[in-house]
């Protein structure tokens, strides 16, 4: 009897130990899962809280905005309309769109060929030229600001948006860098095939490479557009004396003191300035994330 059962109990013991170990592992894994996700949710709440609080503030009455209440007694979406009557928001929007739109188009016209030459053509000083691109990209704008400002003064263009728009006709270092990174990911064979067929280099670029680089071009254009949309340094430097040419960033920075002292309308204006960027992001999230990943190239 005993001789028969002994190995059986052994096996049984072994199996229960095994199962106990496994269930402990599973419990541990579940605990880790819960812990990780709790931390994740806590951090997510902290990241979203500012949006929630400013939205709540933006819907308050002006009387309530003076109190320390966090929740609106009654909801006032008309605050968002009132922002437009307090400050010339449409003018700011128009100026911002002119600046961002023209700068982006000009940047693409000048930077795509340069990035193409830096990534797809073979020539002697290519690596030197790329080092120059990197150096221009890393140079703080303040370093060269005085002569450039003097130049625009001589052309009587300070006070307008042109000093921020026109340089993009001559290439933008960061955009060239980003476009180059995208172009390098396209296999060389397609371009070679087109060259064998007798295409000129311009045709190879426009008919072969650019269609394949569309996501990269879209990402670069979007970064440029939002750089302009967000830009404060350029507008305050060139247009601060001329309110007719203020952009949204500039108007928003003066909003609380020039047009309004209470926080409710200021926060409504702040939300309005954020909104376009966030909306575009939700529609083009993939392009954004791919683009930002490429900016962090391995050094």
């Amino acid at each position: 009897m005993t001789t028969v059962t002994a190995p059986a109990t052994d096996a049984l013991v072994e199996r229960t130990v095994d199962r106990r170990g496994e269930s402990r592992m599973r419990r541990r894994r579940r605990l880790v899962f819960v812990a990780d996700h709790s931390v994740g949710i806590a951090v997510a709440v902290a990241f979203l809280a500012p949006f929630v609080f400013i939205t709540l503030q933006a819907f308050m009455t002006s009387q309530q905005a003076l109190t320390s209440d966090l929740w609106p007694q009654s909801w006032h979406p008309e605050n968002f309309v009132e922002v437009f009557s307090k400050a010339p928001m449409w003018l700011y929007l128009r100026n911002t769109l002119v600046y961002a739109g023209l700068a982006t188009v000009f940047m693409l016209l000048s930077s795509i060929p340069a990035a193409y030459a830096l990534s797809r053509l073979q020539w002697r000083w290519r690596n030197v030229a790329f080092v120059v691109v990197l150096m221009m990209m890393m140079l703080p704008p303040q370093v060269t600001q005085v002569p450039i400002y003097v130049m625009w003064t001589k052309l009587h263009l300070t006070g307008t948006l042109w000093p921020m728009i026109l340089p993009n006709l001559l290439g933008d270092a960061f955009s060239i860098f980003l476009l180059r990174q995208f172009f390098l990911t396209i296999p060389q064979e397609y371009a070679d095939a087109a060259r064998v067929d007798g295409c000129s280099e311009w045709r190879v670029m426009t008919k072969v490479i650019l269609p394949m680089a569309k996501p990269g071009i879209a990402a670069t254009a979007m970064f440029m557009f939002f750089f302009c949309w967000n830009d404060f340094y350029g507008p305050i430097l060139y247009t601060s004396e001329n309110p007719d040419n203020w952009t949204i960033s500039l108007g928003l920075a003066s909003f609380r003191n020039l047009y309004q002292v209470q926080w409710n309308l200021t926060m409504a204006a702040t939300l309005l300035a954020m909104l376009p960027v966030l909306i575009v992001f939700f529609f083009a999230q993939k392009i954004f994330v791919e683009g930002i990943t490429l900016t962090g190239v391995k050094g």
Partner: protein
Amino acid sequence: MTLVVETRSAGVVHSAARGRRRRQRLTVLAFLTPWLLGVTIFFVYPLIDTLYLSFTRFDLLSPPKWVGFSNYVFMATKDPQVRTAAYNTFWLVIVLVPARMVFGLAVATLVTRLKSGLGLFRTVFYLPSLVPPVAGVLAFVFLFNPATGPVNQVLAALGLPEPLWFNDPSLAKPSLVLLGLWGVGDLMIIFLASLLDVPREQYEAASLDGVNPWQRFRFITIPNISPVLMFAAITGVIAALQYFTEAVVAASVASGQATTGGGNSSLLGYPEGSTLTYAQWLYNMGFKNYYLGYASALAVVMFVISLAVTLVLLRRARSLVYGVEGTR
């Protein structure tokens, strides 16, 4: 006969190759012309001119007047504000940059551990970095305002002290750091991509050797992502050196004065000069007061520092410059 044909065809080939090469060179030139003009007009010329102007007195109305080193002497010995400004910018370089990197890496690591809802969490953490800087600062000055701000309401409810944040000279810069941490999403995305690139096998081999999580992070994760960390550190330092928008807007909104109007210099860097950055002082001297010679001297110093930082990057960037292998 054959010899003649061969030489002739060789000659034809030769000149054809030369023609092709010349055409190729012209093509490169055509593609690069706008950019080459840009390099000359917006990079080489202004750099040289800035150096020249830094030795002059210049106010835009009369031509520059040579004054030797006196701008530099003034900067080093007489200008009390420049020391404050340089200190504040240096403070941002050594606090803001590491804080953002550590926090960005922590959030990215957290995202890799989230088994469900990764995409949603990534979106939430990335979102604030898209907020326009001016809007972000306004939001934070409101959130942290001592009188009615939600942050102090919450702190009060918890029975904690209620600091003055943007109105306290010792807390204004840390408040700006909090704003920088909220917008850490761009760094987080870059770190996340490189964390997901670390070869699985290395982690598996390590777990067989029974290393603890810290050792795994220190000896596998960090070496694998160090090029990305390096790039982030250098671009972070360059950005901190030109820190401007957030400081200007925070000071003007917290003090209750307009940013763009007269330019009340007593409120520069409110409170008590604690947010006066080097870039702001350069802007103020050059483009508000039109001491353009002095501003050029400030720019030259900024150039030397940013060049030193950039050279570190370029030395590391060999793989970036040479060939496709170095790119992602």
